[in-house]
């Protein structure tokens, strides 16, 4: 606190002594380093101080990046800058040009801006194309004399310096360009015009050690590869007053020529702007990417809203996709379940069919075997009574034994095919009927059979073995479908479930012509079918499955169709 007050006091004292309240800061591009910038511009500052009583001017040497920072921070009152830089900075910082330094002697490059492409005098490079892929030094990607001017010139010759050359941006001060080129670190250097001549004059390098490529014919006393542009402009920042600006401009215009240069009225920026345009660096017409960025910045709210909507849309889309995927997975699972159930049922039906055929066969074979045994034994009894030592007695015994052996084979085969049916359990008939129908959905639709299901009460529960009952219903539905197939047209299929006389009852009825009379007389006989390719085992299987469940099956004709009635025990309390 005490120190800062002291410093402030000293400054006040100094200010009073110099007759000025506060020094005005003039930013300048120190392209050859701070020392040279101070050396170059201090006489001008001194002149201005003397010309404007009560004002003090101080030089603030800056490189390109430092200048942008100082401008952003509002540290500067005036700016000494080159036309290219001015063109890029003016609109953004609302600069006002007060005067332009121009050569006193026209055709001199000393107070102009130009660019030169230098190689070592002994190098093999003769033209810019031959430098393709070689290391080339430059100052800064935005340096006007140090890079941009030559880049534009090369572009006119069809060379994109940024693509063609291995560019090395060395930064300020620019002297290091020539030093590095001389040392052989790079094969060429893009340098401001007259740098070589100045350094030669200062005996830092020898001019003869270097050679310029694409020498521009307008060049005067300096080697240059490009056209020349005005060198320095003295610009005011918006913070300075109109009166001060006028006073500074007047003083500069009155200033005597020094070092072959003289301040005059600001020259046109048209050439410079055209050049910046070519390089897509024009501040008023920024590149498309910058234009978009600017628009986005201006319409932030709108952009955010749009982005939000897009995001919501995307989320919604993803959500729908996920739903669809899940639905598809569920459908797939259901389909797979149905298919596996269908396969199981088909397998059960096959097993039932084999079992039923074996039973049928056993019955058919047993009858003659029984007859053989009985005849043989009948003979034995009679013969033994007449003559206990009759020679045919052992033979009759053998006949009996062989018949018994045959019967045993049949019994064994049948026993191995018989499947133990699982015990009954409470089964809700509504869901079971619907499930059985779902398995026959396609054939029903193909035959144009419309099914109506009526279960009363809807929660009706019977004591049954669900798989067996499903198989029975499947057989009956298949029978109905086949019956309609023989009539050639579709029709109704009624399935009703209810209770009657303390039993659960399921009625399956169609309108496809019904059973033949002979069929109803002797309903459950195997190897008989109304269909040419059928075995006639379906109803036999149904009866066996129903009997195994403690139920019953009855066939009848009603109206113009078959009616099959299934009976099952109701679910009793002790079952539950």
């Amino acid at each position, binding site marked *: 606190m005490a120190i800062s007050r002291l410093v402030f006091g000293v400054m006040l004292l100094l200010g009073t002594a110099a007759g000025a309240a506060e020094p005005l800061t003039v930013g300048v591009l120190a392209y050859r380093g701070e020392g040279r910038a101070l050396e170059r511009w201090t006489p001008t500052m001194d002149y201005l101080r003397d010309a404007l009583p009560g004002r003090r001017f101080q030089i603030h040497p800056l490189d390109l990046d430092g200048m942008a920072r100082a401008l952003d921070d509002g540290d500067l009152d005036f700016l000494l800058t080159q036309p290219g830089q001015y063109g890029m900075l003016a609109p953004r910082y609302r600069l006002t040009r007060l005067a332009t330094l121009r050569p006193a002697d026209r055709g001199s490059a000393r107070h102009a801006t130009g660019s030169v492409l230098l190689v070592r005098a002994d190098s093999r490079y003769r033209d810019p194309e031959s430098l393709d892929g070689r290391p080339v030094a430059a100052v800064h990607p935005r340096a006007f004399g140090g890079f941009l001017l030559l880049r534009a010139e090369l572009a006119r010759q069809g060379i994109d310096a940024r693509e063609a050359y291995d560019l090395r941006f060395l930064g300020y001060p620019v002297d290091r360009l020539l030093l590095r080129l001389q040392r052989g670190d790079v094969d060429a250097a893009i340098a401001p015009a007259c740098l070589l001549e100045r350094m030669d004059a200062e005996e830092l390098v020898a001019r003869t050690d270097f050679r310029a490529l694409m020498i521009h014919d307008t060049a005067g006393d300096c080697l240059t590869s490009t056209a020349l542009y005005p060198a320095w402009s003295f610009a005011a920042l918006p913070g300075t007053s109109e009166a001060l600006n006028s006073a500074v401009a007047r003083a500069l215009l009155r200033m005597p020529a020094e070092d072959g240069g003289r301040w005059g009225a600001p020259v046109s920026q048209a050439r410079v702007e055209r050049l910046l345009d070519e390089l897509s660096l024009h501040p008023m017409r920024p590149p498309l990417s910058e234009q978009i960025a600017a628009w986005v910045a201006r319409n932030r709210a709108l952009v955010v809203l749009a982005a939000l909507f897009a995001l919501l849309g995307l989320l919604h889309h993803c959500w729908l996709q996920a739903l669809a995927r899940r639905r598809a997975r569920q459908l797939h699972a259901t389909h797979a379940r149905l298919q596996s159930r269908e396969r199981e049922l088909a397998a059960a039906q096959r097993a039932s069919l084999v079992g039923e055929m074996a039973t049928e066969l*056993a019955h058919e074979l*047993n009858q003659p075997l*029984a*007859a053989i045994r009985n005849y043989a034994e009948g003979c034995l009894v009679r013969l033994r009574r007449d003559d206990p030592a009759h020679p045919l007695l052992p033979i009759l015994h053998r006949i009996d034994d062989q018949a018994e052996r045959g019967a045993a084979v049949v019994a064994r085969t*049948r026993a191995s095919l018989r499947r133990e049916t699982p015990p009954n359990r409470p089964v809700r008939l509504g869901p079971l009927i619907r499930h059985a129908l779902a398995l026959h959905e396609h054939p029903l639709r193909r035959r144009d059979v419309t099914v109506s299901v009526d279960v009363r009460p809807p929660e009706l529960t019977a004591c049954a073995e669900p798989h067996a009952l499903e198989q029975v219903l499947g057989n009956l539905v298949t029978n109905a479908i086949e019956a309609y197939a023989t009539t050639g047209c579709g029709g109704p299929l009624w399935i009703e479930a209810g209770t009657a006389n303390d039993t659960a009852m399921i009625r399956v009825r169609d309108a496809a012509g019904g059973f033949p009379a002979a069929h109803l*007389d002797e309903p459950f006989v195997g190897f008989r079918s109304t269909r040419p390719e059928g075995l006639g085992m379906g109803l036999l299987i149904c009866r066996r499955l129903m009997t195994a469940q403690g139920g019953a099956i009855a066939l009848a004709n009603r109206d113009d169709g078959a009616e099959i009635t299934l009976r099952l025990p109701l679910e009793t309390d002790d079952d539950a």
Partner: protein
Amino acid sequence: MPEPDIHLVDDDASTGDACRFLLEGYGYGVTYWSAGTDFLAGATLEAAGCVILDLRMPRMDGTAVHAALRERRSPLGVVILTAHGDVPTAVEQMKQGAADFLQKPVNGTRLIAAVDTALARSRSAWEVRILAQRATTLSERERHVARLVRDGLTNRAIAERLHVAVRTVEVHRAAAMRKMGAHSSAELAALWQRVAD
């Protein structure tokens, strides 16, 4: 008592014929029926005897014939014959009063044993049936006396119980014995036991 008959009910004529041949070999009199309905309509169902029923027949199967016999309180003994080893159904028929069940093809010895069991049961059932018929011919007082004889009371005790003369009891008892076909008081007691009055 008439010689008990054996009825054979089987839809398969050749098996039926073979079975009859076997049974006749053992000395039984056999009547063959090819359908349950024919048997129920034509046979004497009130007599003692045996019926061999094939379980599996078209139109009217063995269980239905058996049910019809029970309904008519026939004393015929029932042997179930099954070709398809339908054991649960056969067992159910046993519960309903069948004497035995046999699987085809049947062994002669087993068949004879089953037939004999059925005949014995049938005879007993037939006798009970006859006794019950006779019992209905007794007067109220004769039935009372017969009941007390069965309970082991002497004539004197019965007379005291019924407040009648001993002579009167003797008359009633003699009438009951004659009507029931008993030759002694002990026999009357045993017969009345079977009537289970």
